[in-house]
């Protein structure tokens, strides 16, 4: 059974449809990517899942039961895109405070914070103030406060923005570990390379509507264009009817097979024509390409401003 099921969720603002009939489900223990261009409605969608906003229509089911903000909130760790902490508060106190608000008793919260601070080598920060931290350090702290209470569902809105590669990796590792330990992770991003690396499943939304849903591999297969990279040492390759040459860069060729031609047929043909093949592999579209194609395909990428009439 799906851990989280979102059914026909809708949220309309006065001037726009922020989320327009979006449904999907997330399996327990999986890493789920929510993709979309800026202003697509990702944050609104996440806010409805975390109980910050009430949907205008539709349901959010957690473990098959309707979402109860009062109690279910404790099982969710949410890191909003706009990072924010009390600037004047000591870091340790702050982490303990947020953990207490998530329902941990004080002594347990302190123990947990210490444990995580050790893991991230932040022990010496305890009595520093948030305003003394660099942006990246603040991000790490924010991540710690999000996962501190061991939530079953972790929702991260743009978790990697503003992090250097080292810290970015650190967080990525933690995300993997948490997923392995049984947590389910949803994160939104518009940086596709990370998605390809860590996500099991993605959905792509644009202008409030879902335009793509599936496993990363499946999606790639679905959008492949039969492109192959061919490396030879000859200056020329004979063009036969089975494929067309898309690009050439020295001894590297990008070719597109016709629908009917199989890879074996083409290779046999080339070998028969004395082409010395050094390398050959399929080019699957990157999620980035798919993303751009889909978003551009559905008219303009970003929403247009509409005059406020309300």
């Amino acid at each position, binding site marked *: 059974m799906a851990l989280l099921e979102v059914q026909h969720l809708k949220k309309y603002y006065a001037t726009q449809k922020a989320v327009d009939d979006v449904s999907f489900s997330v399996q327990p223990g999986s890493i789920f990517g929510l993709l979309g261009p800026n202003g697509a409605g990702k944050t609104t969608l996440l*806010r409805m899942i*975390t*109980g*910050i906003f009430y949907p205008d229509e539709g349901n959010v089911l957690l473990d098959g039961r309707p979402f109860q*903000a009062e109690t279910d*909130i404790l099982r*969710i760790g*949410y*890191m*909003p895109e*706009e*990072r*924010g*902490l*009390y*600037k*004047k*508060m000591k870091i340790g106190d702050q982490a303990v*405070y*947020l953990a*207490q*608000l*998530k329902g941990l*008793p*004080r002594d347990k919260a302190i123990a947990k914070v210490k444990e995580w601070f050790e893991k991230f080598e932040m022990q010496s920060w305890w009595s520093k103030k948030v305003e003394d931290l660099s942006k990246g350090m603040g991000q790490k702290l*924010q991540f710690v*406060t999000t996962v501190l209470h061991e939530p079953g569902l972790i929702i991260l809105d743009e978790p990697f923005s503003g992090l250097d590669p080292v810290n970015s990796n650190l967080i990525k590792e933690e995300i993997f570990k948490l997923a392995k330990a049984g947590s389910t992770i949803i994160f939104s991003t518009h940086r596709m390379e990370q998605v390809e690396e860590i996500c099991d499943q993605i959905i792509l939304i644009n202008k409030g509507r879902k335009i793509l849903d599936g496993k990363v591999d499946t999606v790639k297969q679905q959008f492949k264009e039969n492109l192959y990279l061919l490396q030879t040492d000859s200056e020329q390759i004979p063009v036969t009817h089975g494929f067309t040459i898309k690009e050439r860069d020295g001894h590297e060729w990008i070719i597109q097979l016709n629908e009917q031609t199989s890879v074996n047929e083409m290779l046999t043909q080339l070998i028969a024509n004395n082409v010395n093949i050094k390398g050959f592999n399929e080019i699957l579209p990157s999620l980035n390409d798919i993303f751009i194609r889909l978003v551009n395909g559905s008219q303009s990428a970003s929403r247009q401003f509409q005059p406020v009439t*309300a």
Partner: protein
Amino acid sequence: MNKTYIIIQREFLSRVQKKTFVLTTILLPLLIFGFYALIIYFSVKGNDDLKVAVADHTGLLKDKLENSESVQFTFVEEKDPAVLQQSLKERKYNGYIIVPAGFTAQKGDSLVYASNSNVGLMTKEKIERRINKAYEKIRLQPLLAPGVSIKAVDSTRAEIALQVSKEGGKSGSTGFAYVLGFASGILIYMVLLIYGTMVMRGVMEEKTNRVAEVMISSVKPYQLMMGKILGIGAVGIVQFFIWGVLIMALQMLLPLFFPEMVDQAIQQQGSMPAMTNAAQQPGMLQELTKNLNNTNIGMIAGLFILYFFGGYLLYSALFAAVGCAVNEDPQDAQQLMFPIMMPIIFSFVIMTQALNNPDGGLALFGSLFPLTSPIVMMARLPYGVPGWQIFLSIALLALGFLGTAWLAARIYRTGILMYGKKPTWKEMWKWAFTK
């Protein structure tokens, strides 16, 4: 543990543990006390050795000028201004007055007080008063029948106080009620402004730091808002309590530092034309204590705390609503605060009216209407207010708080996560009254 309680705890501790809190709470009363002590010190010490030489050519004033600790008149035979001037230089006297022969102190006449230093208004009046009094006595004596002394005439002066008794109740002094009412009204006014804006800034801080969204994902907006309001309210009560204790303690210490202060006060009062009888003064002190006993101080203090908290809750909810609507720009806050400031200032105006006419229609309205009642009712209380009005006023205040809290919570819920342009009143109205 209750989440609102955790929030209250943080809001309270984070403010109380600040250095500025300790400074303002402890230092402010000390500063005020030091200021008072300084004033008293100078008024006691500053002018006690004013020596005035009087060169009286008429010989009338001798033994008629009253000496006191602060002004000493010395009669000198020397008639030459140059010699007198010399004695000023030698610091034998602070100044001299020459009364020319044939001076009769008619209307329009004047004497000259010559001095090397500047003469303050108070000093000038002191000397003036004594000389005039001396001439009064000189002229009064010939008019009196033989055997009647001036002392006997003085003793005929009447000094009774008019006490106001309302509906056969305890008598009280209107002046005392005025001062007490004004003081408590002003205090509430300041409480509303200081702690109200503190709530507003707290909410703005949460919003601009973007911590609001993190918080809202753990607690309900309503809990966050109430936690903030109650936490800051607790800060206010603690601060007021410390101030009260400190000021009372220092007040009690005051006579220890200045034992002569009380005597001095008696003397100065005694020399006032209105109160020739120095024995009146202890009576004044007695009257003050009597007034304190007569007006039910316990009840007023209790109601003060009630109106303090009630008014604070009512207004801080509104301030919280304003805080959540503001983005980064403090100027927006100024603009949005204006409609909330209006009723506070309005209450202040009604209060001054109510002090002069405590049972008037405006005062009655002001002390019942929840937006103005904390200030206006406090001003009316020392005059005595019927019980039903107090109950009604408090009930309305409680209802008013529920109303503003409800309204603020709805605006807060939407506003705290709204970024971008400043909302218009129309938009805020929609946040409050649509689902």
